């Protein structure tokens, strides 16, 4: 039975790790740090299996929520640390390493590439204001109040943009989104 726990975790990892690493890297950017966050995501999932409710959402949705939270925690902790630490001798700001593999994963299957293309095309079809507000929420962890402040837009406008954008994406992606999450 105990070996079964690990087999279950391994099965979960094999099925979802690449998608979750892609998600984490959109927030954390640097691969080694993103992989460290991904480890924490799966360890948290293993420790807190009791919080998963199959009636309330998919396994990938549950893992994705954990991944978002851990990635944002990591970025915020790094930002706090960098505020406390003085710059280097040359006064230069820390270099942010962007991993180019975010753009194209050579190991992705044709099906995965098609899925990505469809999802990104749907997002790209939204008006710029809707897309920006949704991306700030998803990848920077901002609430609608913070997004309104960041974009210098009225709160009501931002809420409407997120709502309208998500409704449109639901129309465009409904069958695919269910398939991805299942």
């Amino acid at each position: 039975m105990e070996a079964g726990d690990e087999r279950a975790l391994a099965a979960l990892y094999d099925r979802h790790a690449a998608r979750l690493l892609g998600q984490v890297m959109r927030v954390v950017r640097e691969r080694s740090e993103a992989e460290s966050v991904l480890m924490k995501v799966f360890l948290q999932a293993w420790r807190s299996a009791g919080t998963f409710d199959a009636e309330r959402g998919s396994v990938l949705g549950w893992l994705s929520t954990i991944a978002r939270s851990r990635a944002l925690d990591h970025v915020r902790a790094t930002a706090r640390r960098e505020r406390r630490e003085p710059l280097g001798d040359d006064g230069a700001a820390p270099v942010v390493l962007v991993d180019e593999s975010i753009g194209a994963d050579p190991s992705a299957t044709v099906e995965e590439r098609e899925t990505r293309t469809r999802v990104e095309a749907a997002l790209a079809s939204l008006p710029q204001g809707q897309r920006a507000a949704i991306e700030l929420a998803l990848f920077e962890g901002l609430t609608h109040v913070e997004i309104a402040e960041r974009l210098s837009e009225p709160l009501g406008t931002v809420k409407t943009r997120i709502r309208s954008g998500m409704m449109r994406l639901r129309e465009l992606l409904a069958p695919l989104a269910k398939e991805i999450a299942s």
Partner: protein
Amino acid sequence: MTPYSRDELLQLAPLYAAGATTPEETAAVERAVREDESLALEVAAYRDVATSLATARSVAPSPDLRARLLDAVATEKQKSVPAAPVRGAAVSAVPSGQRLSGRAPLPRWVPVSLAASLVLAVGLAAGAVVLRGELDAMRSSVAALDARLAARERTLNTLLEAERDLKVVYLHPADGGATAPGMQFFWNAKQGTAVAHVFRLSPAPDGRDYQIWALVDGKPVSLGVFNSDADGHALVESLTLPPSTAGVTAVLVSVEPKGGSEQPTTAPFMGGSFPAS
């Protein structure tokens, strides 16, 4: 009791799924979905959309990461393996649903074949049933406290961070005496946030709400809808403000159909002049 109507919760569903709700709104949605199946389905549909957006870009992990994860799990399991039971004290005597004190519960995952995540999902859910009630109650309690704390922080922030940009409007009925209802309206022009404190105002009649308006260049602009509690109090924080205070001359309150109106449909029953800059 959630301060949000069902319509408001439905409106919040896409924002919640995108992760854009405030802690208070998040807690309200999470409480509501436990009791409202159709709302839960609505939220789940938007969460699938958010998940597909968030996870659209696959990136293959380094080949050794899987082994490192399984090593970490094995190490953790060793640390949490219970000591051998005292002779004669059968572990099975512990009632189901009760934790062995002092030890973290091990995840109750069932073994899975290569088949998968659907089976895995069902296994996870079944294994977690015993703990879920307790966890839900704790999470709900913590979320409610978090929401209250966040609301207090926002209120304080609105009042304290404004410095010289805090505009205060005292609203009262035209013929109000010492026991008449009133409102203190605090507008932080620096942050574009506001808080309204309402007192001695009886709850609106059935099917009605109170609506706050700013008079901007002589035209009413809705700032938000509220209702007072049985004691006549309300603290209104979710207000939609114009981009600036330019042209604002007064703040007014009227009684409107539930959910509010585009324009006032009844004469405002209390108001106050907006302070000149």
